[in-house]
């Protein structure tokens, strides 16, 4: 057992069994997580990046002792999540975004104070922290507001403060900026970063399906899709894998029957993704080298497709995702809708 690791998982898996409503004997199995191996040292801000249904929440639930795994094991703060949940709980906290939880009839301060009490925090210390954290997240003027009177976004900020209030060794943030407007999301990201600057020995595991969030905020990112971790490294290293490729973004007029497959047939074109935009299309090209570009342009001209705008750009995590999964994240998300009847 390595005590320097805040979180460690070994071949962690989770299968949900769903019984059919009408015929109870008919069962369907959903593999939500499969052979997940992670080692997260203390002090790290670790990101889990993946589309809807990737298994992010499932992983967080297992690590926060809400859900039992169906295979493998996991340790949090050095303790086994199945056998020693009582050892883990005082050391962690969790916040889920995109939901409004809390006792609406209590004020912001009362809600937070109560949760601090459950963790055995002395009242005076709790109140001091509440004021400080509310100030830092920009909610101090609402301290005496009934939480039912808060907008969804402000309620989420209160919920985020609840997570930090108990000064957890390991904090789990499940899509903390989901549903927040741009400014509020920026507040929250800055808040998380600042907290870690002040408490460098604390660990944060954050899930997101925003590429930029993972890129900007996280020390290391695991890209997860359909329950499997496909890559795990710092954002810089993940992007560096693509550095030898040349990435171009070309805005064109209507594609005139052009498809990605036609372009991918050109030697030197590793990937071509065509997305319809209003009044035209966008072409995302991954070339082995700049020298493949003229061939692409001539194919476009043959089909009388006009180029409106051409940029060469740096790789992003989105490109990494496409490289690993074969399609952009927005498309990987569709899988779930197709599954459901």
């Amino acid at each position, binding site marked *: 057992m390595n005590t320097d690791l805040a979180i460690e998982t070994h071949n962690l898996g989770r299968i949900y069994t769903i019984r059919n409503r009408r015929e109870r004997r008919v069962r369907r199995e959903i593999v939500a997580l499969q052979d997940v191996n992670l080692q997260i040292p203390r002090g790290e801000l670790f990101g889990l990046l993946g589309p809807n249904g990737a298994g992010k929440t499932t992983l967080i639930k297992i690590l926060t*002792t*809400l859900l039992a795994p169906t295979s493998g094991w996991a340790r949090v703060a050095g303790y086994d999540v199945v056998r020693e949940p009582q050892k883990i709980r005082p050391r962690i906290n969790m916040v*889920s975004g995109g939901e409004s*939880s*809390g*006792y609406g009839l209590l004020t912001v301060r009362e809600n937070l104070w109560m*949760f601090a009490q*459950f963790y055995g925090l002395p009242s005076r210390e709790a109140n001091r922290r509440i004021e400080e954290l509310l100030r830092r997240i920009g909610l101090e003027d609402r301290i005496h507001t009934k939480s039912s009177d808060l907008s969804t976004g402000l309620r989420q900020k209160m919920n985020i403060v609840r997570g930090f209030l108990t000064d957890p060794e390991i904090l789990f943030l499940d899509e903390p900026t989901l549903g927040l407007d741009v400014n509020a999301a920026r507040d929250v990201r800055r808040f998380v970063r600042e907290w870690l600057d002040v408490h460098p020995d604390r660990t944060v595991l954050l899930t997101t399906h925003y590429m930029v969030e993972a890129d900007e905020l996280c020390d290391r990112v695991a890209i997860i899709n359909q329950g499997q971790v496909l890559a795990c490294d710092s954002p810089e290293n993940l992007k560096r894998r693509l550095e030898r490729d040349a990435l171009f973004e070309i805005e064109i007029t209507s594609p005139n029957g052009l498809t990605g497959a036609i372009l991918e047939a050109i030697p030197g074109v590793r990937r071509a993704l065509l997305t319809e935009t209003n009044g035209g299309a966008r072409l995302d090209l991954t070339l082995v080298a700049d020298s493949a570009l003229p061939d692409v342009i001539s194919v476009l001209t043959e089909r009388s497709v006009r180029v409106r705008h051409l940029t060469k750009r740096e790789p992003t995590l989105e490109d990494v995702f496409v490289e690993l999964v074969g399609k952009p994240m927005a498309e990987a998300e569709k899988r779930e809708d197709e599954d459901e009847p």
Partner: protein
Amino acid sequence: MRRQWDTVWRSFRIATWLGWQIESNWTDPFLFAVYSMIKPLASAAILVVMYGVITNARFENPVFPYIYIGNAFYMYVGSVMVGVSWAVIDDREHYRTLKYLYIAPIRIPAYWLGRGIARFLTGSFAVLITMAAGVLFLRVPFHPAEVDWPLFLASLVLGVAMLAMMGLVLASISLMIAHHFFLIGEAVAGALYLLSGAIFPLEVLPPWLRPLGFAMPITYWLELIRRALLGDAARAFPTLAAFSNGQLLGILGGLTVLFGLIALFAFRWCDYQARERGLIDMTTNY
């Protein structure tokens, strides 16, 4: 050990505070008082009217105080048993806090009991009001000097503890079931109303249902309360006449301990199942 009790006490104490905040969340205290009086009185009134119609208004018959007291104290079932179990559904579906409570370093059963305390207090108020109305307006016999106060208090304490344990069993079950069963508490309370001699002696039940009535601690509890308050008049019914007060207390105590153990195992098992199946933060709009 010491730490464990700290946790239990902390969970219970804060939950009591929260329960009271929720229960007394009436912007207008006057409205609150009126509401908590009208509801129990209305239900007692229905019973009285029904009794009057069926028996041609024979309110002097000892059956009447038997029924009236049974009904009044049965309100504790609704407040304590249902109150304790309701916390699960309330926290999960309404406040969406169940998962945050679950991962906090608290003892969940102690938390549930704490949430029930406020309901116990408002329930006591309802029982008191109903009894007062019965004594003042319906000539339910009540002579403070003749009441067996020690027996009454002992029965009340044991009875409330027993109801709280039954509430824990229901709460544990609620941990595992979906929202559309949210009336489970009310349903159980309704069924037990007929099975535990609250408004008629067990002899009225079909013979095959009677054993169930005898297995219910509420049956013995209501009998004890009646005996403590009414004295010999309570023995007008043969159901439990063969038992002395001491024996009844013993049975009630034994059943309370038994339900306490059942509650402990029910919680362990349901908690385990809920974690295995991922039901703890399940909400209906999933």
